[in-house]
């Protein structure tokens, strides 16, 4: 009898010990943060973002913030951009902990976070005065300011200006000029356009469509079926891109080349144009400081018909978690990031243009990007579409062309995918 009771007791103890041990794993950092947060009334706010390359800049800024605000500690966690960041953010938002200040991208991600009521409404906050008003529109919904875009990016291909000067090539202002430029580069043994299949389609599609699409809201109409991939302007866009591929102006084997590989080839001066955006310039400058860079968009029409010179995006949208226990501290941290001297420190350390007023840009790359503020640009069409599946289908249409698929087949496949995923 005693043996039986001992066995029962032993089994239960083992079961509960193992259960407790299992349950204690995986939440260590959050629990620690929570414990720190309560200790001596000191708040610990968690700041999560996707820019690993900005870690050092943020560490320095956080140290200054903590010095000025001794009752607030900032724990920064960085996840790789794209899916890993989205997954982590999703888990934190659902749990209600771990992301007091978080960043989001405009478009589908912002839209999904809005649906989950993750954002604290920042409308009317004094910190909004630190921003250029038209540059934070992407963080608005129904007239309310939920997120604050911090970075201003030009999604325009980067080109090697030194190489262009050496070959006597001028930046083209129309489609014929663009083709002639590519041909001259090719004749000189240089790959005209470097393309990484994972990043480039989502970037290049914007500049390819900007002067072909009927109006700047066209991309939102894909998700309701009002606009189709079979529409003449989109067919023309793909035909123009197909021409670039067929003439050998796009990197050979592009579907097997990732963005990092294409960027490395650009830094090694094996190609003249990198299908990316202004955000790549700081990394290129680090890899090869001898390259003088510029931004060059393919104009797909005649110079007279050109509506836009390039694409801009306001992104890295700062938001306060509506479920945060420390909303005040979180808002204070965002406000600190928008102080002109702090924003200037961040911009110059990371090579990013910002949406904040009175920032002093000191690096050469930022100077080049800054010149684009006076040019006529349109907000990234891809991101005004809030249906991620349709966005992916449109981006993938370029990859299909690169991998040798005909324009007709690409269009029918793309439209079929759009039809299956129309927003009801």
């Amino acid at each position: 009898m005693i043996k039986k009771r001992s066995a029962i007791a032993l089994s239960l103890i083992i079961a509960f010990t193992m259960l407790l041990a299992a349950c204690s794993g995986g939440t260590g950092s959050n629990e620690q943060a929570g414990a720190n947060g309560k200790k001596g009334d000191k708040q610990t706010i968690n700041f999560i973002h996707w820019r690993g390359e900005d870690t050092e800049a943020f560490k320095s800024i956080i140290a200054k913030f903590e010095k000025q605000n001794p009752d607030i500690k900032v724990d920064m966690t960085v996840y790789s951009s794209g899916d890993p960041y989205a997954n982590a953010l999703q888990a934190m938002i659902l749990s209600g902990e771990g992301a007091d200040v978080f960043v989001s991208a405009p478009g589908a991600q912002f839209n999904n976070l809005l649906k989950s009521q993750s954002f604290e409404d920042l409308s009317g906050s004094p910190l909004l005065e630190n921003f250029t008003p038209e540059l934070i529109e992407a963080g608005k919904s129904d007239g309310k300011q939920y997120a604050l875009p911090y970075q201003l990016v030009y999604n325009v291909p980067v080109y090697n200006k030194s190489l262009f000067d050496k070959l006597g090539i001028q930046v083209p202002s129309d489609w014929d000029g663009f083709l002639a430029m590519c041909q001259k580069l090719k004749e000189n043994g240089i790959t005209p356009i470097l393309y990484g299949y994972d990043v480039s389609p989502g970037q290049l599609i914007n500049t390819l469509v900007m002067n072909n699409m009927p109006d700047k809201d066209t991309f939102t109409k894909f998700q309701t079926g009002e606009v189709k991939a079979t529409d003449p302007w989109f067919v023309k866009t793909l035909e123009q891109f197909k021409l670039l591929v067929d003439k050998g102006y796009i990197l050979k084997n592009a579907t097997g080349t990732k963005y990092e590989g294409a960027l490395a080839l650009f830094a090694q001066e094996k190609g003249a144009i990198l299908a990316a955006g202004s955000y790549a310039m700081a990394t290129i400058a680090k890899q090869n400081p001898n390259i003088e860079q510029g931004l060059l968009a393919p104009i797909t029409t005649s110079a007279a018909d050109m509506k836009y010179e390039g694409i801009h995006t306001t992104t890295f949208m700062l938001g306060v978690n509506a479920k945060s226990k420390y909303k005040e501290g979180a808002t204070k941290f965002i406000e600190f990031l928008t102080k002109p001297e702090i924003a200037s420190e961040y911009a110059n350390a990371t090579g990013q243009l910002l949406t904040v007023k009175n920032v002093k840009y000191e690096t050469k790359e930022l100077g080049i990007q800054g010149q684009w503020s006076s040019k006529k640009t349109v907000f990234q069409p891809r991101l005004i579409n809030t249906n991620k599946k349709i966005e992916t289908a449109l981006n993938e249409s370029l990859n299909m062309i690169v991998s040798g698929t005909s324009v007709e087949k690409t269009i029918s496949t793309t439209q079929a995918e759009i039809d299956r995923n129309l927003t009801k």
Partner: protein
Amino acid sequence: MKARNGTLWLFILPGLILYSIFFILPAGSSLLLSLTNWDGMTYRFDWVGLKHYGDLAQDPIFGKALSNNVKFSLTVIIFQFGLSLFFAILVMKNTKLNVFYRTIFFFPTVVSSVSIGFIWMFVYDPNIGSLNLLLNSLGLDSLARSWLGEPNLAIYSIAFVQFWGHTGQVMIIFIAGLQSIPKDLYEVANIEGASRWNAFRYVTWPLLAPSAAIVLAYTTIQSFKSFDLIISMTDGGPNNASEILSTFMYHQAFTYYSFGYATASAVVLMLIIMVVTYFQFRLLKADRVVY
């Protein structure tokens, strides 16, 4: 006897509780979740019944993922099974040289799949990759390819990396199986004049069936669940050419926020693995010999 059985049940209780919490409950809730349109971000959802299963049947990307999974799994099963058995026979005896070779063959297993993926991504790179450079230097330029970029080739290129990384692991199971076969049986076969092939066919293979069943089931499940390698190497691209069921599920859940749909595909994946494994075990059980 009844009291004894009760005590024995208590001893399996800890495992049973953990198994229930971490497998049966999640699997059960997955079935329910697959009947909803939950987006993974909010606490709201609607019941949609079997809609997702109907949608899966008409989804060309799911169809492609399924077909890619079959290609991937068959390639991995055939090569991983064959090569691991071949190497196991070669290095079965416990000599110093064989132990050295076993270590070499086993080594990729201790490296994480993501690291292996990144290493092979550089090997396969069409512009700077060592594989194409090697082919070019040997004068075999015509064989140089965009290994991960050609839609018809990508899934096989990744399958190669999969069995390159795991052949050494399953080889160990075969070695254990081979070493457990009594030597007398080979002596008898030798006396009876059996050729090496016949000794393998009528002695080794039947007695190796239990190990083969484990290897086959393990390799099948591993290949169907293969995820990290594909995500790190191609993320399912180009144009879904290397998308398999597990990456399809991941993309639906975490890229497109369609958790209900993703869970329906997970249920289908689970059913496929269950059916395939059941038939594999039945097939190999028929060959099994008890001595």
